[in-house]
């Protein structure tokens, strides 16, 4: 007979084993990509997990990195995603601070407008017309603003809930000390919002980095393409050369997986914060 403690331990080991076996469903597709990125064109044609007949090679990476387009697209993605995060966090936090504190009808209308953006998809065709009218089409800045607009609804939702937990006494004592709203917000309130800012910034960064639709409509010059668009382009051009396609995919996945691993806790915190309330 096993004791309770032994039984529990056995079950825990069993759970871990089953869990890892099932996780192969997630891991194997990635393994296929990584393995084949180190195979010659002949070997990678099969896209399997077999040992390469021609040996492991780095030539796919050398070739796709040649010409610097991938590196350039990496910096494009970095610029656009970071710019979007910066703009989106600052403007949304500012707006939600006032909206949450004022609670007037007009402010509630603005809040619901932001909220509708969580549901309705954007119309890229007409958004592009607006950018053209502002002479911002095809520019980094225009793209950053578009992404910021897409990120505002989620950020607004998160900031609205969090700002409600900050006591108004903090505002009052600062006001008595003679600060104006800009000083109050940027020196006192914004630093207090750090936990939610980190979460929202991470999620916004990931969705901007991964987005495929906006640059497809908005960025026509290939010199400004993001990594995802670059991969799509390579995929069209190098139809049968899976080795090289895999190398491009691996290079595209590395930056975002680093962000994912480093920020995993915050991502999960953000994704679940809405869940409890429903």
């Amino acid at each position: 007979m096993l004791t309770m403690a032994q039984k529990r331990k056995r079950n825990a080991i069993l759970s871990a084993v089953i869990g890892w076996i099932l996780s192969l469903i997630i891991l194997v597709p990635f393994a296929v990509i990584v393995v084949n990125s180190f195979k010659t064109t002949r070997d990678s044609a099969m896209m399997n997990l077999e040992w390469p007949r021609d040996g492991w090679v780095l030539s796919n990476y050398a070739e796709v990195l040649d010409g610097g387009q991938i590196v350039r697209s990496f910096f494009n993605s970095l610029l656009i995603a970071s710019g979007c995060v910066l703009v989106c966090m600052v403007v949304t936090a500012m707006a939600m601070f006032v909206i949450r504190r004022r609670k007037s009808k007009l402010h509630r209308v603005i809040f619901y407008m932001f909220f509708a953006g969580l549901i309705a998809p954007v119309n890229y065709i007409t958004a592009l017309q607006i950018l053209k009218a502002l002479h911002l089409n095809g520019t980094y800045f225009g793209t950053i603003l578009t992404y910021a607009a897409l990120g505002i609804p989620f950020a607004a939702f998160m900031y609205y809930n969090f700002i409600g937990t900050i006591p108004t006494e903090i505002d009052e004592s600062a006001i008595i000390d003679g600060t104006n709203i800009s000083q109050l917000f940027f020196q006192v309130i914004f630093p207090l919002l750090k936990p939610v800012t980190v979460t929202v910034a991470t999620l916004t960064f990931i969705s901007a980095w991964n987005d495929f639709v906006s640059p497809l409509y908005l960025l026509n010059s290939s010199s400004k393409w993001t990594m995802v668009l670059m991969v799509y382009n390579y995929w069209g051009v190098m139809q049968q050369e899976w080795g090289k396609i895999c190398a491009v995919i691996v290079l595209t996945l590395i930056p975002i997986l680093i962000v994912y691993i480093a920020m995993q806790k915050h991502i999960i915190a953000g994704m679940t914060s809405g869940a409890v309330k429903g």
Partner: protein
Amino acid sequence: MYKKQIYRSWFTMPAFIIYFLLFIIPVIFGIGYSLTNWNAMSSEIKFVGLRNYLEIFNPDNAYLLAIKNTLVFTVYASVGKIVVGLALALFFNRKFRTQNLMRGVYFMPYAISSLIIGMIFTSILAPDGILNEGLRAIGLDAITKSWLTNRSTVLGAVIAVEIWKSIGLNMVIFLAGLQMIDKEYYEAAQLDGANAMAQFRYITWPFLRPSITTNVILNIIHGLKVFDIVMALTNGGPGNTTQVISTFVFKTYGMGAYGLSNALSTFISILTMLIALAALKLIAPKEA
């Protein structure tokens, strides 16, 4: 009076302007343009009433099929994600080693672009891909298929990939709900002789309701907007068998039929709004 002086309205302006210009106005203009013949061929834009919408609902065109595909995709993918996500969450809601690392693995596809996931799976699902290789290795040669070019399997394959991507997200949301449950409830129930089924029915389920609502809504919204994964996996093919509304928005835009493209885009906005609100009304827990 006092509030107005401290919390200045101009503070809401930067966010409002960006959002209004690049989100609200495009949607409103889109509705307007959807009633015109705006296209790449002529510089003249004429009002045509509901003609573009009649075009969408004309059974001679493939748009109705795309609407049906979008709905089928949304329903099956949502159910699949919720069932698998819930099963995983129940599995993870206990203590064992390497749990956090494992959870990170299941959630990982969430951080990756749908487009890239679609590309990866074109190779996995290819006739000589690793899925068929695996099936052959375990003697299931009979069910190997060219998953993405076979008309009867292709939509199912796209749905399966979507489920693969999002089970981690559903799992994490369910786990948050499960972890709110005090372990003492279960202990008390065990003392009263409640079996596992009864414990699930009377303790776990009520606590899960809010996270089910969240997952259903998120999955529906996400499903109706589907685009990237279809573009990468099938590009709408073979024929138009996996065409969805968003791929037709892009396709008609590419053909220069901007009025029609806007009508499709407007249609999907209205459809998403209506379905999401209806779902919210139907399944959201009633306020006590």
